[in-house]
């Protein structure tokens, strides 16, 4: 049965983050949810690695959308595997338990494309999640989130608790994190190109060989996919959220250079890791189960992201 959001008390963890802000926007503007019915815990007030804090934020809520996560690019993943593992696994597990105890009707948990094995057959099907070990650089993060899929099924079986798990690909769009320590590939490249242009530098340096491929989902599409699943999807099987389009880092870099009118050289630093060799999702389950399809054309999305960065570059 479909869930109607209006009138429900909704908790959105990570609601002040990149994805969270777009999701809130969608809830309020597109779905007509009153802002008073949405609660977004801030990290200075609540530490979601603590069970007591999870219990506090779940109280009197009907629906929980758990977006809070600790994330970073390859460098951050290599440097902080312990923190990435601990923060993510404890937050997710405590939220699951607290939401169940509080009598929440449904919880949406996000796993990640990083949960997939390094050499998953392409396109990645949800059924192949357990067929191998993830790419080493993001394994602790990806595995912590892979565990939620099992956790979700365990709570569903013992308590008939309605937990669903979604597996989004790499997200991008306005409002992304452009901090060089923490950013993912799209904002990192945009920033590099912008800085090279500012310094009149005629080249940029990019990690890896450029041959790795990725799939990107525009942030507004991701928010829509999550909310459609929250409304319509009630099964234990995890669901991929992607655009279904694969692009190499080389093509991505060239596209960004072109859109930003940068004509300098691209230097590949092959001493740096590529990360997972290829990423590209089978998106048929999301379409079949809750009618989700990404709408935003990649270049359009990139242009909006570049414009946002350039107008917010401080």
């Amino acid at each position, binding site marked *: 049965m479909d869930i109607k959001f209006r009138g429900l008390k909704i908790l959105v963890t990570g609601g002040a983050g990149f994805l969270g802000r777009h999701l809130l926007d969608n809830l309020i503007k597109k779905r007509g949810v009153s802002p008073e019915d949405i609660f977004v815990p801030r990290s200075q007030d609540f530490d979601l690695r603590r069970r007591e804090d999870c219990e506090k934020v779940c109280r009197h809520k009907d629906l929980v959308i758990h977006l809070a996560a600790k994330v970073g690019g390859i460098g951050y993943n290599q440097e902080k595997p312990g923190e990435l593992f601990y923060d993510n*696994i*404890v937050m997710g597990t*405590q939220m699951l338990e607290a939401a*169940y105890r509080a009598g929440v009707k449904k919880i949406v948990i996000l796993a990640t494309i990083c949960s997939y094995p390094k050499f998953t057959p392409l396109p990645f099907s949800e059924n192949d999640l357990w*067929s191998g070990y993830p790419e080493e650089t993001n394994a602790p993060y990806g595995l912590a989130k892979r*565990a939620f899929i*099992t956790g979700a099924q365990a709570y569903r079986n013992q308590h008939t608790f309605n937990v669903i798990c979604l597996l989004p690909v790499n997200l991008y769009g306005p409002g992304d994190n452009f901090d060089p320590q923490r950013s993912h590939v799209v904002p990192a490249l945009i920033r590099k190109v912008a800085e090279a242009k500012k310094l009149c530098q005629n080249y940029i340096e990019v990690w890896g060989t450029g041959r790795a491929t990725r799939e990107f989902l525009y942030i507004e599409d991701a928010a829509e996919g999550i909310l459609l699943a929250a409304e319509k999807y009630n099964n234990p099987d995890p669901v991929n959220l992607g655009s279904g389009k694969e692009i190499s880092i080389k093509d991505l870099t060239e596209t960004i250079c072109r859109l930003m009118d940068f004509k300098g050289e691209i230097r590949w630093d092959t001493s740096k890791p590529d990360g997972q060799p290829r990423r590209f999702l089978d998106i048929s389950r999301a379409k079949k189960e809750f009618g989700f399809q990404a709408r935003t054309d990649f270049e359009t999305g990139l242009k909006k992201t570049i414009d946002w960065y350039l107008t917010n570059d401080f």
Partner: protein
Amino acid sequence: MDLKNKKILVTGGAGFLGGHIVKKLLERGVPKENIFTPRSFELDLRKRADCQKAVNDRDVVIHAAALTGNVELHKSRSAEIFYNNLIMGVELIEAARQAGVQKFITIGSATEYPDNIRLPFREDDLWMGPLEPIHAPYTVAKKMLLVNAQAYRKQYGFNAVHILLTNMYGPSEHEDGGPIPALIKRIGEARKTGETTVRIWGTGRATRDFLYVGDAVEGICLVTEKYDKSEPINLGSGFEISIKELAEIIARLMNFDGKLDFDPTKPEGQPRRVLDTARAEKELNFKAITDFEEGLKQTIKWHGY
């Protein structure tokens, strides 16, 4: 690492495995006052503050506490099994790291292996396929402690290791612990009441690798003393036996000549299981030494039959 002058926390110290670990440590010459075995009513290891108390001023942690049991328990309490095992392990490791513990042993299980990998199970194949669904909440929670140990070793240089322990058996194991005490109990009761048939779950064709608890704790002590690597390490007997053969041996040792009736409509878990013991042999010179029938006799005796 010489354990004699170390302060050692053994979680689950009142349980089957934990109790035998404590005994083995005492045999190794660790003074009794250096071994700490908090009971669950004293410290709730699902709570961070209690984990911090438990590891305070300890040099070594052997984490043997777990919520586990037979297939039925794993089915009916799947959420608790997931939550308790995961949170206990993760919070205890974090507390130990912060407290400056020198070594942390996470005890995992052979059920962490996927169903359809080559035999015997090699540590390098641990991630090569899906897990048996009934046990997944338990096995995934345990597997996460391996991931945790590896991530902490990498970021913090924290010396945490992960053991993949096969099915154990031996004196003092509770009767719902595993197939051996369950079989002993059923056959013992049938003999007492004059029943001529004992019903056993599954087809009887599933196989397991049973390690006598005395051998298991020797292996755990050797890991504590000598093994400081990121990769998990199997502790098993390397000896594969079907549940049917096992039931027949127990029936013979208990002088039961009735019928063993297998119920194939009931679940039996992983189809085959036997561990590759090469890594433990190479790294620790460990080999199971207890003869299987001898170990079974000790166990039957302990159960009072």
